């Protein structure tokens, strides 16, 4: 599509360069500047436009640049490449920098949440409306009753993408029915899972989309204000969001009389200090209220009594990003994608020992092997796949025998892990599974809020035991105690953090028990990761 340049003429070529955090961190901004300078210097400003767009997905190869309409993709550029790139416009592409746009990484994905990511300038409302942005909001407030919006959500079968997988339509319905003169909508953009950056990327690449979802939700449940709770470590996301809120307000998509109706909805941003537990909904609410961010027992659930004791709808960033397309295309359309009980697509942050690391979106039910070996390009350096960790600190490790499993909420749970927010860390034989469990336990221990005993003290004791095992100082009794603590902490902790903290231990014990035994009985780390004292030394200590 031709692009309007600053001087009002139609550009023939657009250079779309990724300006999401990943690419900016490898000089994407400098490359963009260099390209602009180069274009000016050659007097091409009327023919060639440079545009900053959201994440193009293959972040490991950044900065990424797409040349439209030629469909050429460039990777890993440095500012010095600008001249050569501009020179090549309309001619042969620069082979050296080319990134294969036809590789499975790109072609096997199905984009709903990320459909605008890399397609629109996240700072320009016009870009967003040009691709149908805010049509869904206009349709909802203009043509639909709130109850119709909710029933469309129910039909879609969308489940929360923040970790729990609770049916979104059901949650919306509960809040809509709750008694309360005031109601709130909260977007959970805390994203505390280590290694996860799905929500950040959506906010940086397509902030208007999240706001649109929130406004539709507000209309559906009867709320007139909302908050985005975002961690302060995401300054770029916050900046884009602020800008998006301002532009949407000015254009009448937020504020009073939205799309000419009597519906009113405002959105504010609240910054979190970056505590993992503040992603837990009751802790998050407490944090917005200005109190210490620690969870409280549920019920009452936020849907009945949340922010300032008012009924509150709280959904994840990705959940909200799914709303506009559902309203635009209908719930039926959405429920046609994915599997019986897991509908739609899921965004995953693919990381670890895999060729293509980055952000991907695939239909629910995509086979694990396809994700890791086809889209992910397999394990580098000729090594062997060992396990994939899903669901972050609340999840577990899935071994090779499950590679042909279709990824759904249910199948992951069956394999002893969870979908979580979508982190996927691939591991090869150089990873020690006991050490992996120890790492996640350490995370839970340091992130525990300290309110309840089993989590506060239990995670610390479990970490101690895992440390002992990885150092070759543990006995079988220690292993028994570890397993017992897993059970107590899991069933008696107050919130999800404590309740799920044993998961990485349980799943590694389930599939890699022999590694634990090797550490304990033979004082060896089969993967060669853990540094052990020599067995003779240990025996000397014990004696």
């Amino acid at each position: 599509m031709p692009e309007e340049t600053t001087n009002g003429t139609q550009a023939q070529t657009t250079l779309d360069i990724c300006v999401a955090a990943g690419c900016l961190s490898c000089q994407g901004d400098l490359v963009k500047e260099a390209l602009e300078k180069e274009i000016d210097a050659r007097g091409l400003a009327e023919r060639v436009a440079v545009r900053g767009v959201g994440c193009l997905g293959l972040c490991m190869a950044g900065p990424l640049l797409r040349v439209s309409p030629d469909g050429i993709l460039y990777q890993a550029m440095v500012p010095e490449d600008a001249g050569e790139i501009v020179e090549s416009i309309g001619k042969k592409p620069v082979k050296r920098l080319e990134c294969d746009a036809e590789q499975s990484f790109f072609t096997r994905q199905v984009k709903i949440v990320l459909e605008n990511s890399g397609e629109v300038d996240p700072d320009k409302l016009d870009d967003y409306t040009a691709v149908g942005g805010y049509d869904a909001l206009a349709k909802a407030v203009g043509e639909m009753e709130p109850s119709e919006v909710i029933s469309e959500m129910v039909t879609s079968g969308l489940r929360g993408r923040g970790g729990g997988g609770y049916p979104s339509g059901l949650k919306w319905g509960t809040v809509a029915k709750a008694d309360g003169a005031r109601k709130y909508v909260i977007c959970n953009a805390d994203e505390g899972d280590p290694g996860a950056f799905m929500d950040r990327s959506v906010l940086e690449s397509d902030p208007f989309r999240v706001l649109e979802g929130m406004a539709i939700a507000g209309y559906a449940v009867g709320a007139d204000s909302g908050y985005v709770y975002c961690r302060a470590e995401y300054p770029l996301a916050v900046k884009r969001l602020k800008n998006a809120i301002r532009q949407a307000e000015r254009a009448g998509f937020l504020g009073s009389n939205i799309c000419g109706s009597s519906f009113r909805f405002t959105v504010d941003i609240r910054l979190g200090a970056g505590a993992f537990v503040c992603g837990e909904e009751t802790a998050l609410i407490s944090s917005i209220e200005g109190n210490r961010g620690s969870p409280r027992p549920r019920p009452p659930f936020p849907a009945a009594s949340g922010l300032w004791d008012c009924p509150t709808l709280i959904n994840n960033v990705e959940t909200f990003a799914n709303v506009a397309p559902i309203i635009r295309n209908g719930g039926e359309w959405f429920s046609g994608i994915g599997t019986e009980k897991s509908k739609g697509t899921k965004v995953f942050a693919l990381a670890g020992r895999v060729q293509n690391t980055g952000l991907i979106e695939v239909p629910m039910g995509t086979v694990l092997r396809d994700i890791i070996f086809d889209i992910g390009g397999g394990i580098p350096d000729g090594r062997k796949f060992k396990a994939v960790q899903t669901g972050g600190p609340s999840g577990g490790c899935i071994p090779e025998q499950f590679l042909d499993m279709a990824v759904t909420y249910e199948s992951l749970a069956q394999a002893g892990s969870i979908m979580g927010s979508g982190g996927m860390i691939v591991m090869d034989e150089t990873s020690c599974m006991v050490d992996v469990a120890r790492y996640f336990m350490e995370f839970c221990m340091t992130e525990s809020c300290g309110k309840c005993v089993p989590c506060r003290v239990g995670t610390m004791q479990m970490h101690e035991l895992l440390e002992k095992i990885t150092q070759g100082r543990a006995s079988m009794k220690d292993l028994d105690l570890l397993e017992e603590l897993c059970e107590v902490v899991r069933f008696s902790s107050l919130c999800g953090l404590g309740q799920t903290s044993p998961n990485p231990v349980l799943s590694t014990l389930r599939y890699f028990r022999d590694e634990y035994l090797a550490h304990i009985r033979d004082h060896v780390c089969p993967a060669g990761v853990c540094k052990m004292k020599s067995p003779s030394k240990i025996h000397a200590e014990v004696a």
Partner: protein
Amino acid sequence: MPAKVITLTIDGRDVSAREDYTILDAAKEANVKIPTLCHLEGLCDVGACRLCMVEVKGIPKLLPACVTKVSEGMSVTTDSERLLHYRMTIVELMFSERNHICSVCVSNGHCELQAMAMRLGVDHMRVPYRYPTLPVDASHERFVLDHNRCILCTRCVRACDEIEGAHTWDVMGRGIDAKVITDMNEPWGKSESCTSCGKCVNVCPTGALFEKGRSVGEMVKRKAFLPYLTQMREGKK
């Protein structure tokens, strides 16, 4: 409007309860004793110690009795093997966290943690002690805070805030490093908000808060006044 009365079963017995009761309230009325530590009549409940957890038929999760409301037809079990085992482990975890040496503690013989251990039959420790190095704050003219005995039940925090209205206490830090503090983590003796009313000391279940000049065994906590004060304050019930 009088609250509705509902029926439920607790340990197989039929009991009736007001619909705004917690499981703990209903159990108390029916003379069923559920172990508690962070709960104290007269203060709001936080569900932090997890000792009061019960099984409810049809719900796979365990629920804390102190914050879970009763409902019609609910079937509650308060003392299964499993619950006892979890409670014993939780008490062991409490002992392991800080330095509890009862023989030299002012609360020896009058301590709820100690009593709980005896009641549940915790006679040895399977989890290792942590032995942290923790300070004692004796800067207040009448009271002492000994972090070594604190179990972070936050009763002091709630009593000071909800009953005395001073809000001298708070919790700072995360996880195993969490601790109670006075004002902005200043010595208690320097506190400008503390009225020296002694409520926190009297609601503390352990020897973490005590009065100066009392010998071991003398440090008996008087906490029965709390419900009374709450009633006076709210002027109802």
